[in-house]
């Protein structure tokens, strides 16, 4: 297809000229997504571990709800956050609609269940391994969660990166709550949607290629930092 090859060339052109608008858009994409994933991880990782080490009445139900929330269409989340943040909604006074903060809130809601659910599965296996030792050493619940998260960190990176992947490629929710405002809330995905709607397929493809490149770069960077690829480690 013609648009795909021109898209590649467009992507190269955009990268080589270091188009200032593009840089702004990429940075905002990263800022929103990284912040959202960081917050979602802060909630989701301990939640996943907490669900493993605690036996309580609605545990199975909670896990089922988390798993179901993973399948929530982002547009529905967007609509929900929009209604919450709208001036006529309960949190309207905060004036957060159409700001990057609103986009972060929506993305946290979208990726938190995913991160919690994947980390729950990961931690469950590790807990089966560590259970006797931690009980024997009389570790408190908080200590169990801490140890499981720390020792499971390499596997948990997968959960975080899955969250990152879902967030960076998300368009439905952030379009609604961010408004795709130029120089304010425009990110890579909303730009792609916009350019596609304008029939600028090559440009849209170019942005798509940049999106993928950014996502791969972040994944590689995280893996390098965490040294997962080093053969000598776990």
């Amino acid at each position: 297809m013609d648009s795909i090859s021109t898209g590649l060339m467009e992507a190269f052109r955009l990268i080589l000229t270091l188009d200032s608008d593009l840089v702004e858009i990429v940075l905002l994409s990263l800022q929103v997504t990284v912040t959202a994933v960081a917050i979602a991880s802060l909630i989701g990782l301990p939640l996943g571990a907490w669900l493993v080490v605690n036996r309580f009445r609605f545990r199975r139900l909670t896990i089922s709800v988390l798993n179901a929330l993973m399948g929530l269409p982002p547009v529905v989340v967007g609509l929900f956050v929009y209604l919450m943040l709208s001036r006529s909604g309960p949190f309207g006074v905060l004036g957060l609609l159409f700001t990057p903060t609103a986009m972060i809130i929506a993305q946290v809601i979208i990726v938190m269940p995913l991160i919690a659910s994947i980390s729950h599965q990961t931690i469950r296996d590790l807990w089966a391994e560590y259970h006797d030792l931690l009980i024997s050493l009389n570790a408190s619940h908080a200590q169990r969660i801490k140890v499981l998260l720390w020792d499971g960190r390499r596997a948990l990176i997968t959960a975080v990166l899955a969250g990152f992947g879902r967030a960076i490629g998300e368009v439905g929710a952030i379009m609604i709550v961010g408004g795709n405002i130029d120089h304010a809330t425009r990110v890579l995905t909303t730009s792609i949607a916009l350019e596609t709607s304008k029939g600028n397929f090559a440009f849209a493809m170019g942005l798509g290629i940049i999106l993928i490149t950014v996502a791969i770069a972040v994944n590689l960077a995280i893996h390098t930092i965490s040294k997962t690829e080093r053969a000598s480690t776990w």
Partner: protein
Amino acid sequence: MKLPFNFWHATVAALFIATSAQAAEIKVAVTTSFYNSGLSDLLLPVIKDDLDLDVQLIVVGTGQALRLGKAGDVDAILVHSRKAEDTFLAGGFGTHRRKIMYNDFVFIGPVSDPAVLAKASSASDAMQRIKATASSFASRGDDSGTYKKELSLWVAAGVAADDLSTNWYHAAGAGMGATLNVASGMNAYVLSDRASWLNFGNKGDLELLYAGDPTLFNQYAYIPVNPELHPHVKTDLALALETWLVGPKAEELIANYRINGELLFTFNAVRN
């Protein structure tokens, strides 16, 4: 779990940057057709220079723009659907309506032109020709001013709503660009605002077949949101922007704005 202090620091900082407001900014809901014209790219930097004002455009359909205004989520709206605007004002959601400019709607269709729209005598005639030949027609089918215009044209042409639930009428339920993409993919006729058409990058076998009937004129109006309902709206800034939009500098820029050499807008604001 222990992460370097710097990481949290950066995260908190990022959040803070995300929430902290910039100098003077105003949110205006505008229609897709206006945005797609590219005129805003020309106007906004000049407004920024003149008024030191960041105009943030929320690009949506007319219906959504009006809803944002009603909810107080924007400070002003710029739309093109007279009836809906009047209802909006009657409900007390806006302070007043200010005409700014108009452009026009155009009939786009396949080069082969099976309905011979090129020979149409009026907008109504064009609609009837499409219906008579049962040629594929792509409609916005959303909540936009363009869709409302299209529906009123069908009524004026004597085509009943029932006649539109046929296999040649395709409601895209999407914005102008997406609908043009549909038309391009199906080689269908489509009603578009001229600006979206001229800026559209995926024309394929489509071309402009009919335009010029005065009923196709498309009046843009600016309505500030009523601060009595929403005390937080920036009425001062909305009025400053209005004054600028109807001023001589805006007239100069709007009236001379061209895409591919074609003039697009007729400035018709009345200054007081």
